[in-house]
């Protein structure tokens, strides 16, 4: 368990190994840098490389009140074999579902490389008692989820009760055991890049394996600048401690071209070592078909109608 902060507002928590200074973020320059990276022109074999990587990094997601085992089964099939007409297309990284659907999902992807990720901790608001959240985490882990996605409690964060947020992440990390923990910051509710950086460092200090932008339930989810801001925090943690933390932008990434921009940004910020689904995921529900369409265009030279790609 963490202790209360020594200093009133900062992160001077007694953490080992030492964390980078919190620092600040200049919004104008951050957005400028993100925009300039998005101008890279990625063509031919470099593009095919990026698109295939994007498929392997994708978390196919369905988080709806109307989700059923049937819907999850369809999603799982798509995840395992995204393009039935092209066996060369790799499986996606994971499918991401609500806790109740974990057992169905686990049954469907058994024996494949596709992982099952479950949201937990009163997703998407996080506004439930800690005991309830921990119980939910234990339940999804027991039912075979490979990855747990928690949301941080934005209420305490925005009222500067950082220790409470920190403690909660530590407890969820404990409850999830060996299962990979992704911590969702819900950046749209944090208001400033300074807060995004602070929350990123806080989550990583508390034991996050991944940090993730958004629940996908709010407008203004992942953007290039906010993702860059989080990647820079990850880089600082890596430089200070040697720990490699993963990143997942989620929400609003719908086109293959955007996915390539995200990967260029990753490549030029954290380097080639991060170009793996172990350290980067793209959260998306409608991106996959556009990537498949672009991949087939690169192979055949012509665009095909959307009717040739399955809607699941």
């Amino acid at each position, binding site marked *: 368990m963490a202790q209360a902060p020594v200093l009133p507002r900062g992160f001077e928590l007694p953490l080992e190994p030492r964390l980078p200074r919190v*620092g*600040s*973020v*200049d919004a*104008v*320059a*951050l957005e*400028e*840098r993100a925009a300039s990276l998005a*101008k*890279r*022109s*990625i*063509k*031919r*074999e*470099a*593009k095919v*490389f*990026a698109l295939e*990587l994007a498929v*392997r990094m994708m978390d196919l997601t369905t988080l709806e009140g109307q989700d059923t085992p049937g819907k999850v089964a369809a999603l799982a099939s798509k995840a395992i074999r995204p393009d039935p007409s092209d066996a060369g297309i790799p499986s996606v990284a994971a499918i991401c579902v609500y806790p109740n659907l974990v057992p169905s999902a686990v049954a469907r992807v058994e024996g494949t490389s596709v992982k099952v990720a479950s949201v937990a901790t009163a997703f998407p608001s996080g506004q439930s008692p800690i005991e309830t959240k921990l119980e939910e985490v234990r339940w999804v882990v027991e039912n075979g989820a490979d990855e747990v996605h928690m949301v941080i409690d934005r209420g305490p964060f925005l009222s500067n009760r950082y220790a409470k947020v920190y403690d909660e992440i530590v407890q969820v990390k404990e409850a999830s055991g*060996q299962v990979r923990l992704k911590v969702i910051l819900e950046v749209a509710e944090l208001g400033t890049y300074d807060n995004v950086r602070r929350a990123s460092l806080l989550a990583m200090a508390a034991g996050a394996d991944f940090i993730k932008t958004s629940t996908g339930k709010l407008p203004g989810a992942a953007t290039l600048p906010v993702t860059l801001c989080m990647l*820079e925090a990850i880089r600082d943690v890596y*430089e200070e401690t040697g720990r490699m933390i993963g990143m997942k932008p989620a929400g609003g990434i719908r086109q293959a071209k955007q996915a390539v921009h995200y990967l260029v940004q990753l*490549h*030029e910020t954290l380097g*080639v*070592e991060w*170009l*793996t*689904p*172990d350290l980067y995921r793209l959260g998306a529900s409608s991106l996959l078909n556009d990537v498949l369409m672009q991949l087939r265009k690169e192979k055949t030279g012509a665009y095909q109608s959307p009717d040739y790609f399955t809607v699941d």
Partner: protein
Amino acid sequence: MTELERKQDRTPVPKEWAYAPAPESRDLVTLDDRYGHYVGGTWLEPSETYTTISPATEEPLAEVGQATPEEVEAAVAAARDAFENGWSGISTAERAKYLFRIARILQERAREFAVLESLNGGKPIKESRDVDLPLAAAHFFYYAGWADKLEYAFPNRRPRPVGVAGQIIPWNFPLLMLSWKIAPALAAGNTVVLKPAETTPLSALLFADVLRQAELPPGVVNIVTGDGRAGAALVKSEGVDKIAFTGSTEVGKAIQRELAGTGRKLTLELGGKAANIIFDDAALDQAVEGIVNGIYFNQGHVCCAGSRLLVQESIYEPVVEKLKRRLTTLRVGDPLDKNTDVGAINSEEQLERIRELVESGEQEGAEIYQPPCRLPEKGYWFAPTVFTNVAQSYRIAQEEIFGPVLSVLTFRTPEEAVEKANNTPYGLSAGVWTEKGSRILWMAERLRAGVVWANTFNRFDPSSPFGGYKESGFGREGGRHGLEPYLNFDGGESSGG
């Protein structure tokens, strides 16, 4: 899962992700084999020529004229004629119309000009496309707006055009410097003889075609090409009422000596050795971007480049570490490739000068860092360079290198930062990086530099005046201030001229 199983779970990491070449099409621009001087709205066959090349490949691009004093005089006479017989007398709204036309044509032909600028100058296409061309058009738009409002810009002073302006521009931003010079001169009612730099005449020569398209009356803008001899002839010409020069301090001093006592007006925009000052509370990753943009933008061929980095001692290590890491991601190479960040050095002569100064830095004891990068075999190239352990007395901390070479120094207090920043014969620009607004203002009051950027660097806007202190020159370009050197007023000389 055991730790071992988790390891086996890992997917392999690729060795590299090499971006495929993404060249902009060279066919966007068509060049003649040979160009003359553009005088009185027609091409004057030159008596002497030289070959202009692409510094990235040393490939010859075209033959251009080396103007003789007689050819320069012909251009001055054409400008005088246009001034006396038309241009100074037409309505100011009419003048504005031509400037608006030029601005729009530059926008329409932006891709063509961008390719030519990169081809002849060596700068990355993304920079000529995203910086040089938009700003060049913006300058014409901006001064077009002033052309019929001079009475309001200088109330009760009866602003009048000076006459014939002789304008000599450098090779680092050929078209942009052309627009900085021509736009205010025409807006104020002057006519112009422009001499582009020896190594980069082509965009100015293509600009003559823009003037034709805009139907600018003949003789209002004349373009003569050649080396320093052509520039000297223009400076000496008695038919010129005002000289505007952007270039080296050495040549600037010679021009000032030449014009002393002649009554001809002069503005000089010369060298710089700007300090980029990083305080320990700055947003570090963004400051590092600013450092990179400050010195590696346009291969460091920028008079206001942030060539001296002053870092507060407490953050020296992380800043240098981040900077070195960032340098490894800079892509040096083909200027026409859309992914190139750093292009070719403009000329062999400039490359020699950079090499000589870098050698002196190593000999004086500074520590050099260059990221691993493969430079093309042909052409003029220099890897992005950082010097640490630099003392204020080293040549690399004092002299303008005009290349992609950064000298890193440290300071402890704001007072020391100001003292070190001002301790240079130059005073063109400075950068301050801090989250503290009051400190920005405190610093800006004390820095002896024409431009002080706060939490940014190398940012330009036509409405913002630009110019130097001390050996960086005098007079301002841009903004309302930029009109003054091109105007005479009741009650004597303007402060700007």
